[in-house]
Structures are given as structure tokens and as C-alpha cells.
């Protein structure tokens, strides 16, 4: 039974799926967003917060490109903080606590009101393929069949299954199939992908128990307020109107650790029931206690799940230890002596597809027109998922329109770093973005995401002309101010060099006879002065990087026939088949000498 024909099908309406569907539809393609339930759109499965170090940069970049996450966060945010304020601008990131309900509702409204975008309720049963016309693919996407037998046809499919592929939830030795609390898993997709020739692996993540706010004694807990005034995520948000709330800080005690330690053998992590690899940066409490016995106490942030709800998310005690142990240990935490758990913490294991199987457009190498985004690519986090959804949606639309793909590189955006890491590195744990992964960190700041990326958003048709013009005006004012600072001197020293001095601000130096700069312009001018020298050093490295990045490697290059490559490099290159020489340099086991050999062979081919 055929029940619809579209250009693009997006399967899964989480943070990746929403951005993918919005981008494809806004680029003019008839798009269906397939989700188990309309209410589940943009659900925050883990903690109700967006942003944080490096993740905040991703959201700002997505916003500059025309994505939705930043705007929705501004609408649903109940506590905003700019992290690392005491450090330099390159390592500052926005973070916002959100009203979980409101976030979901706002995103749903945007999705529902977007022309060409249709929501289809249903669970995907299998992906249908046909013979590929383009060389290099084993087959081509043709559509899907839902579990209840409906057929949806499309030549591009973005698959964003989150933790639902063979999702298995653990609380102690209790196992339940499901991708998220109270929701059924996607059982068939894994088999379907395996049949299509994909290799799958297994990862794990976890959540803490949720608490009833009325049963918490906040009176003796440290308060963590948000910024006043709150700084919005989106470059287009003027100010945050929603009333702001407080978070509280508490910590684990000796007694907490004792209970966890004595019951650790009952946790699926230690009993051997869990096979998937969990993230090191987000360990369960049992993991923390057992691996770091010398640490006497761990921090816990008590984060409200919303302005109107009474649920609290205790950030820091993710666990899958049995329910009775959860009940016992939470009560040893200051402020939680009489707490009521509204939902137990659990771990979830799920399938993912190791990422040597995707192109930098997130299209799979085997099935033409099939794209992967989010946790299926081995990442964790809403922000990481959202930017992948965007990249996949945009590229699906571009490909169907016969246009060149959209790939950001490592020198342009954190998004570029993330995608490049996915296609060049072996995923050993759920991948999360950190600022230390961006080698051009000083250039890729959250404050200049608009200056870096708006033009791409405009070119793609996802940023309006007036918005883009605003960015161009801002850029012009920045350049004028910088030129002026270089020209003018005080005591024989150019003004820009005076601003460079530690502790000096632009405001102290800016000539009084000139009109004051707008705040956003002044901020950029000051940072450019402060980072001068370093930015030039990095720009030079970028130049070299771009050269290698621009050297494409033909997809049919026979690495196994290149004798001069080291054995290690040969097998790695044959597996990953990098798109460019630059990507090849980042593969483990490929040395500079191997790259030299590749260069000579490329030259030999091109003549």
C-alpha cells in the first residue's frame, strides 16, 4: 500500500531529525518527518539543557547557518549561563537549562508550521532500496515501509534512530527493550541495515533517577543563579523574556560511596550484563566510585526540568544500579534525605553504525541517498545530533537538486571538526565535542559564528537576505574599526597594540572623538586585537591545511596496489577511502611519508 511520495524522508523526530527535516523542507523539498508519536518531537531524553563547552559553539554555528535549535532554546530556556567567563573568548560557551515540555512544544510548532513538511506517525519497518545508478554504491534508497505496512517513497532518507536501534534498558539486573523510558525500541532496522551490508556496533549511555522537587530540602544547598541579563543563543534573539530559575548544588557523601561500592556488583556495568561501551566523560556514579576511590565527593547539580514541573534532574549521578540501591544512596545526599524518586535511573544500550561507512555529507557509502545522523553515527548529545541532522538534511536536498555538497572543514567550524572526526576516526565511545578537539580553536569561537557561517546559510537559502545583510554590515564596521586602531597611535604605539596588552580593554583605548561602537562590533574588535599574532599563526596553519584538504582523492584509487605505502597505511586507507589528502593525513597509522607517496601517485594519475 503506497501512502505517500516525498523527496526526503526523515526517520526519527529527535534533535537530528527535526533539523534535517526543517532544512530539507526549507530548501524546497517535499519532506516527511516520520515519528512514533507527534508528542515525542524534540524530546530531551537526558538532561534538559542545551549547550555547554564546545556544544554551545555547535549550537551557535547551527543558528548562524539557519538551524532551529538556538531559537527554540531561547524560547524554552529557564536559566542561561555563559561558561568560562573568566577565561578567554575562544573557550567560552553558552549553556541553557530548558523547560523540557516547552522545548518540545516550540520545536513541534515550528515543524508543523513549515511549508512542504509533513509529519507522519508510524514506526519504520524497513528501508526499501533499488539498483544504484551512480558508481560506487551497492544500492539506492527508494523509500520505507512502516511496521503497519504503509509505503512511503522518496529518493533520500535521513535515518536518525537515536538510542532506539535494538535499544535495551537496564535497571540493575532488570532488562527491558526500549529506546527511552516508556517507548518501544526499533527492532527491525538493525537487521535491515545488516542486510543492506552495514556493520553495526554497540554503545551505551545512561541517565540519573529523576526527583520530586517537593521532597527536596533546598534550604542548605548552594544556589547557582543564571546570568543576569541572560545571554541568548540565537544571533537573532534580542532578549530572553521568560522568567529565570535557580539551580542548586549538592554532592555525594562517604555514605553514598559506601552504599554504591557495596552494591557495585549488582550494577549491569560490573555484572557483565552490558556489552556496549559507555562514554568516559559521562560515567555512571558506580563507575566514578569504583574507578576513583580516592575522590571523596562528587558534585551534583539539581536542575529543574521546567518552570511548571516539579521534576528535578540530578546531574552527576547517572546510574543503572538496582532500584533499591538507588533509593538508598540518594537519601545520603545533602538535601535529599526525604526525597521521592519519580523515575529510576537506567542505562541504555543501542546499535550504531561505525562511521567509516559514511561520507562527509553523512550519506552512506553503500546506499545512495541514505543518510545517517545523530547517535547512529556514534555521537552523544543533542547538539552533536542536531548539527548532523542539519548537515544530512541540507546535503540530501542539495543532491536531489543536483547541486554541490555542503561540507564544512575543520578550519571553518566545530561542525566541520565533528564530521571530519566521524569520517576519519574510529569511534570507541560515544563521541562528544570538546574544545580541545578543534585545532583552530582560537578561530572557531561562539562569538564569531555569524561572521564565519552566515554566508553559507544565506547561500543555502536558510538565512534571509535582511539577516545576511546585517552580518555584512557588522563585518564592515569591524574592519573599519580595526583599520582605524592600526592607524592611530598613542605615545607612538598603534592603538591595536595597546588593546593587546593584558588587562587592557577596547573601551579604555577607543578615541573619545569618535562615536562609540555597537556592543557586538566592539566585542569582535577587542577579541581580534587580543588574539592578534595567535590568529595569524593559526591562519598560516589553516592555509597549509586547506591545500591538503583541496586535493581530492579519486574514489577508485587502488591503495592495495601501492607498494610504497606502509602496510598499516595501506589497509587503513583501503578501509576508510578518504575523500581528500587532508583526511588521509588524519587517519591513524598514515605517516607523512605515506602522504608523500600518495601525492606522487595522485600526480602520476593526473599527469
Amino acid at each position, binding site marked *: 500500500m503506497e501512502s505517500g511520495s516525498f523527496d526526503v524522508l526523515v526517520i526519527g523526530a529527535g534533535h537530528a531529525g527535526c533539523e534535517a527535516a526543517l532544512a530539507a523542507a526549507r530548501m524546497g523539498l517535499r519532506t516527511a518527518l516520520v515519528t512514533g508519536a507527534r508528542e515525542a518531537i524534540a524530546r530531551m531524553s537526558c538532561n534538559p539543557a542545551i549547550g555547554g563547552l564546545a556544544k554551545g559553539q555547535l549550537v551557535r554555528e547551527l543558528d548562524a547557518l539557519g538551524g532551529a535549535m538556538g531559537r527554540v532554546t531561547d524560547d524554552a530556556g529557564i536559566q542561561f549561563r555563559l561558561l568560562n567567563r573568566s577565561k578567554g573568548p575562544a573557550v567560552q560557551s553558552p549553556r541553557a537549562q530548558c523547560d523540557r515540555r516547552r522545548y518540545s512544544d516550540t520545536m513541534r510548532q515550528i515543524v508543523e508550521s513549515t511549508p512542504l513538511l509533513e509529519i507522519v506517525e508510524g514506526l519504520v519497518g524497513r528501508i526499501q532500496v533499488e539498483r544504484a545508478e551512480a558508481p560506487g554504491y551497492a544500492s539506492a534508497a527508494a523509500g520505507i515501509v512502516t511496521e503497519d505496512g504503509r509505503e512511503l517513497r522518496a529518493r533520500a532518507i535521513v535515518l536518525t534512530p537515536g538510542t532506539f536501534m535494538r535499544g535495551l534498558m537496564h535497571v540493575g539486573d532488570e532488562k527491558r527493550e526500549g529506546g527511552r523510558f516508556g517507548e518501544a525500541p526499533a527492532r527491525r532496522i538493525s537487521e535491515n541495515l545488516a542486510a543492506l551490508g552495514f556493520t553495526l556496533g554497540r554503545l551505551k549511555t545512561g541517565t540519573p533517577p529523576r526527583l520530586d522537587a517537593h521532597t527536596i530540602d533546598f534550604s542548605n544547598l548552594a544556589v547557582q543563579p543564571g546570568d543576569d541579563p541572560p545571554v541568548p543563543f540565537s544571533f537573532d534573539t534580542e532578549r530572553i523574556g521568560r522568567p529565570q530559575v535557580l539551580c542548586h548544588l549538592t554532592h555525594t557523601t562517604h555514605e553514598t560511596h559506601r552504599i554504591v561500592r557495596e552494591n557495585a556488583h549488582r550494577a549491569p556495568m560490573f555484572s557483565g550484563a552490558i556489552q556496549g561501551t559507555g562514554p*568516559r566523560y559521562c560515567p555512571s556514579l558506580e563507575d566514578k566510585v569504583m574507578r576513583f576511590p580516592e575522590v571523596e565527593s562528587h558534585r551534583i547539580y539539581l536542575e529543574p526540568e521546567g518552570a511548571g514541573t516539579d521534576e528535578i534532574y540530578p546531574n552527576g549521578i547517572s546510574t543503572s544500579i538496582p532500584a533499591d540501591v538507588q533509593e538508598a544512596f540518594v537519601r545520603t545526599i545533602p538535601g535529599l534525605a526525604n526525597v521521592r524518586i519519580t523515575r529510576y535511573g537506567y542505562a541504555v544500550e543501542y546499535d550504531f553504525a561505525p562511521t567509516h561507512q559514511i561520507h562527509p555529507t553523512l550519506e552512506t557509502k553503500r546506499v545512495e541517498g541514505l543518510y545517517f545522523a545523530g547517535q547512529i553515527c556514534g555521537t552523544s548529545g543533542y547538539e552533536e545530533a542536531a548539527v548532523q541532522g542539519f548537515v544530512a538534511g541540507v546535503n540530501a536536498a542539495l543532491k536531489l537538486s543536483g547541486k554541490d555538497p555542503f561540507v564544512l572543514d575543520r578550519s571553518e567550524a566545530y561542525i566541520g571538526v565533528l564530521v571530519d*572526526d566521524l569520517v576519519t576516526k574510529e569511534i570507541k565511545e560515544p563521541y562528544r565535542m*570538546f574544545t*580541545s578537539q578543534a585545532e583552530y580553536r582560537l578561530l572557531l569561537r561562539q562569538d564569531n559564528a555569524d561572521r564565519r557561517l552566515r554566508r553559507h546559510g544565506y547561500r543555502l537559502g536558510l538565512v534571509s537576505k535582511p539577516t545576511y545583510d546585517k552580518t555584512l554590515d557588522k563585518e564592515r564596521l569591524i574592519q573599519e574599526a580595526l583599520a582605524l586602531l592600526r592607524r592611530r597611535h598613542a605615545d607612538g604605539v598603534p592603538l591595536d597594540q595597546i588593546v593587546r596588552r593584558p588587562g587592557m580593554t577596547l573601551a579604555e583605548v577607543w578615541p573619545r572623538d569618535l562615536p562609540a561602537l555597537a556592543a557586538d562590533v566592539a566585542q569582535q574588535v577587542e577579541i581580534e586585537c587580543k588574539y592578534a599574532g595567535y590568529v595569524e599563526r593559526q591562519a598560516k596553519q589553516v592555509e597549509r591545511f586547506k591545500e591538503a584538504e583541496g586535493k581530492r582523492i579519486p574514489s577508485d584509487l587502488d591503495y592495495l596496489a601501492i607498494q610504497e605505502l606502509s602496510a598499516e597505511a595501506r589497509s587503513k586507507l583501503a578501509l576508510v577511502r578518504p575523500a581528500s589528502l587532508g583526511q588521509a593525513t588524519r587517519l591513524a597509522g598514515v605517516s607523512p611519508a605515506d602522504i608523500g607517496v600518495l601525492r606522487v601517485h595522485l600526480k602520476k594519475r593526473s599527469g
Partner: protein
Amino acid sequence: MTDTIAAVATPPGPSPRAILRLSGVEAIVVAARVFTPRSGGPLAAQPSFRWIEGTVRWEGAPGPGSLAPAGLILMRAPKSYTREEMAELHVPGNPVLVGALYARILAAGARSAEPGEFTRRAFENGRLDLTQAEAVLGVIDAERGEDHRRALALLGENRRTRATALRESVAGLLALLEGSLDFAEEGIDFFQDESLPEQIRYLRETLSAAAADSQVPRGDVAAGLPRLFLVGKANAGKSTLFNSLVQGSGALPNLESPVAGTTRDMIEAEVSWPLGNRAVAFILVDTPGFLGEAAACVDETGHKLLAAALAGRPFVLFVADGGRPWEKEDGELYERCRGLAHRVVIAKGDLPRRLDWVGVVEPEAAAAALTASARTGAGIPELQKALAEWMVDERRSDPARAQAAEGAIYTAVGEALDRAWEEARQGGAPELVAASLREAVEGFSPLFGPAAPEEMLDRIFGKFCIGK
């Protein structure tokens, strides 16, 4: 146009002259930052392919900067070996001077050349034709012998331990700094902010002490192929043999600058010969300057030059005339080569054998001696194969190169630590200090390979309990 690369083109160790080579869009700009022409005026105004006398300023390990005499040749694109802008700096072959100058060149905007990169660029830019691809691959492969693991293994246990400990300290400090940036919300005290300048200064001093103690020739580990000197008396058939070896398959165009009067004391050719399914590359050096035709060969200057060249402990192919008995000059020259890594070839193999050297030549060299005739070509392929095998063996186990890698590390890491310390001391932003510390960690790559991107996160996760 591509970025600018630099390499010390002569082998490590003392020698009469060292050559530093630059290629890339900023080659002349970078050269101008370290070299001052005697005639005054900007370097960029100087003509191509002329010997430019001048001075280089360098900072030796102890004491303030000083000047050294130097010569420079500019080769402008596209009329250069790589078809890019090139500069070739000739300085006295004092290892300390060469190391310090090389570090200055890197600080002035060039980067270390990768294995075979000059040759590869020449190839990519069309200077060498496609039929020479195999030879180019041979050069890259030969320099792969400089692989960091081998260099580290050859360093000797004490030095290896010291270098490893130094890298550990620098990387450890960077990990703490990165931890404080990426995990600010964890409530972990990675370190006391106030102590940062002091910690960097301590690292710098430890490094300086190690560098002073090691007294190794400093320079670029990836630079320069091994050099094989042809030594022999006049008319022994040396130059004819040289030509016949070089004209054989796999020889690349002469790398030496085509300026009369600057390099006439040595004629060099980079050769790349097949060995199994690989190729071996090295530089063959003829020495007509010392031992030209007739009387000039034995004059005092010639002998002095030869002595200085051999003091660099190069590889030597001693050429004996098969058509004449062992003569006094043979003996004198051979005495200079005794103790060096050397082989013997009997040239003019087509003439009736009159050479008799029993008891004169070291038994091992005598046993391995080959006979060749440049005139008939007999024995030339065998000689090439033997030399290629020898160069592979020698090159793979040359501790001098490992020591040069150690020296390069101390220079590059020291510079980066200086920048980090300066920033930290002035209270600069921590991410700027981190940027320089990252470069310091990268500076260890000649011995430890490039830092894996995951290294810092691995260190942080291994040591601290991260994660809310």
C-alpha cells in the same frame, strides 16, 4: 603556491660547509629574516642565481646573539629545482650554528620539510617528468628511514628516558590546562592558575639543561639523504665512474645550485636506485675540487678540504685504478678513509689488472671490493646494487640522525615554551598559553611522532573523574 619548507641539506655533524634550503611562497621573505646581504639593501632586490655574500645572526646556546659569515643563492620560481621560490643558505658547518639557525628559520615562518618533500614538490610542479615518479617515491621511502620510532630506539637508553620524561612533563601540563578549559564545570582543581608561569619556566630550564648536556648536533632529522663520497687519486677513473653511475637509471637532476665558484669543490647528484620492489636514495658526491686533474689534486688546499669533508664522517667509496699498481697517493688517501664507513671499487675493470693491494686495504673492504668499468658498463649494475644495499643498512642504523632528532626537539620545544612562558607571565588568556604548549608538544614529534588528537583527553580522563 604552497607554504614554505626548510631543511638542513647537509648531514649532521661538523663539516666545512652546511647548506640550509628553503622552498615555497615565502622562501625569500623568510631568508631575509635571518640573512643580511653585505652590499646592503633588501634581499628581495638581489638577482637570482648569484652568490650573495652576507651574514647570518644566530643565537648560540650560551651568550648573546652573534654574527657568522654566510652566502646565499636565490632561485626564483619557476626557474628552480622545485619550481617554487627557493633560497639556499651556505654557512660554516658548525653544528651549533646550524641548529640555532635552523630554529630561527622555523620561527621566521617556514616549517620542517617532510620526507622527500623537496623532490616531491619538484615532481608535483612538473620539474621532474612522470617517468621519474618511481625515483621520487624512492627518495620518500629512503627518508622514511628517519621514522621517529627508529630514531627513538637509536637514541640510547639514557637519552631516550630523558626525552620521554620531558615530553611527559610538557604534555602533562598541557593536559591540566586543557582540562581546566574543557571541564571548568566539574569543580576540579586542575592546578593553581598562579603557578602556571612558574611551571612553564621550570620545564624550560629542565629542557635547557638537557639540551646543554646532550651536546648533539642540532638540525632537522628529516633533512638530507646520506652522502656517499667518491675518493681516489687523480686519473683513478673516479669522475668517469661518477658520471656513469649518475647517468644510469633513476638519477635525478643535480640538486646542487648551478653557480660557478660556489660549489665547485663538490659535485653532487641525488640518485635513487631500485632494490627489490623498493628504491634507495642517497647523494653521490664526486670530489674533483680536492683532487682535480694533474697536480692540483695533491695541493695543500685540496687535502685540507678533503680532511674537513671526511671529518663529517661520511660514507666513502674508495676508487682504485685497476690498470695501475697501488701507489703512494692511493696509500695517503686511503689512510684518510681508514676508520670511516667505506667500500672499495676497482675502476677501469676493462684494463688488464695491475693493481695489487695485499695487506694495504682493510680485509673486509677488500673482500667486498667490486670491479667495474665505466667504459664498457661491466659491473656497473652490480656496483649500484651493492651501494644501494649498503646505504639501506647504514641509513637505518645511524645514531647521529637520532641525535639530530633529539637536537631538533630541544630547539623547537624550547621556542614554544618561551612563547608560552611569556604569555603566562603577562597574565595572558589560558587558551593562548595552551596554543603555545600545544606547539611544544608537537615539537617532540621527530622522536615521538605527531601527537594523537585524543592524547589530551585520554590523559585527562585517566587522571580525573570527569562527568556530571
